[in-house]
């Protein structure tokens, strides 16, 4: 399916019909909630209740996750149909109708952190002749930098279309004064792969570890000798125990549900069966 950003601008695309899906479709809700939980984890907040910002809050699904963790939030979104759904869902956070690309209308140092689920990619498109994506991104990031306190983080889950778009977003964020970068969860899987842009306002700190990346990677360095040996050995024989174990390992790397290995894995059945 074509990317939603290409179909219409966000305030048109998220019509009442589309917005309804976010309160009824349990699959969509599950995905949104999972991503929100991961985003909050990446925020690395202390246990106290915080005052957070939800950018592109939509129907407030991500806000509900923040509520569950005891935080207070303010949400901003451009689609009034989505905000109506949020009102129906009776979320605790306060809602605003606004365009992120026009800058955030908040006082300096107001928030302890910000999350955003699947909103950032909308800013990379020019929906009107007056829109200039790089400029809009810069206006957005610099106003965000101003309204957060100096130990805060902002975590954006987004769907970059290609590496150029990722580069555009990160470079504008760095220009606005942020430190940080992109964390990719489940990099080996096409479906479970998720991009999180983690921005820090309080100086450079190590980026959090992505999920679903095998630990063995670090350690042995690359040598051509190993490669040659591997070629000599070739792939394990199909249906053999080694082949099954390798296949299971690959699934684990992709973050798919896989049974653990036991002495029974890949064992031949007895003749009586």
């Amino acid at each position, binding site marked *: 399916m074509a990317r939603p950003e290409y179909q219409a601008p966000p305030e048109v695309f998220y019509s009442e019909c589309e917005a309804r899906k976010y309160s009824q479709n349990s699959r969509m809700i599950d995905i949104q909630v999972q991503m929100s939980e991961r985003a909050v984890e990446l925020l690395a907040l202390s246990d106290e209740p*915080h005052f957070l910002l939800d950018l592109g809050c939509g129907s407030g699904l991500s806000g509900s996750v923040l509520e569950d963790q005891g935080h207070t939030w303010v949400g901003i979104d451009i689609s009034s149909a989505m905000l109506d759904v949020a009102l129906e869902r009776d979320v605790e956070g*306060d*809602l605003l109708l606004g365009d992120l690309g*026009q800058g955030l*209308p908040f006082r300096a140092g107001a928030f302890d952190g910000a999350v955003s689920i699947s909103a950032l990619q909308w800013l990379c498109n020019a929906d009107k002749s007056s829109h200039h994506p790089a400029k809009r991104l810069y206006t957005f990031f610099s106003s965000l930098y101003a309204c957060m306190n100096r130990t805060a983080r902002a975590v954006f889950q987004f769907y970059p279309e290609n590496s150029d778009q990722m580069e555009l977003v990160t470079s504008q964020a760095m220009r606005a004064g942020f430190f940080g970068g992109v964390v990719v969860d489940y990099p080996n899987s096409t479906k479970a792969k998720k991009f999180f842009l983690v921005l820090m306002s309080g100086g450079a700190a190590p980026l959090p570890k992505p999920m679903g990346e095998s630990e063995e990677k670090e350690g042995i360095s690359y040598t051509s000798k190993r490669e040659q040996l591997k070629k000599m050995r070739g792939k394990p024989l199909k249906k053999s125990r080694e082949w099954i174990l390798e296949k299971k390992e690959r699934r684990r790397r992709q973050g798919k549900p896989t049974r653990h290995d036991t002495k029974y894995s890949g064992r031949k059945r007895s003749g009586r069966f």
Partner: protein
Amino acid sequence: MKLLTHNMLTSKCLKGVNVGYPLGIVAKDVKVLETEFNSEFVSRIIPKLDWDTLWNAADSIGHAGDLPRAVCDDYENDVEFLKKVHHVLVEVEVIEGELVCPESGRKFSINKGIPNMLLNEDEL
């Protein structure tokens, strides 16, 4: 819109507006919704608030009650005071009305409790 949000809102995104704070409130419909009191959150948020703005905003919509004009020193342990602040901050909501920019006089309408902060292209 809660007064906590109003305390953080500015109109500085408008062209030619430098501070844009505090926004004036013209309230047509105000509701009071009881919510759970969280003393830790309230005492954490007090240092961040602009107290005069909060008091004036509460006064302008007729909900100042017996909220003191200044923050007392030992507010963390004063549960009565924290409860009053909690009431004004998150329980009082402006449902219908307008926000007014102090510099340009531009009005932002509030419908169903959601302020419309969208700007026209010529205002950027």
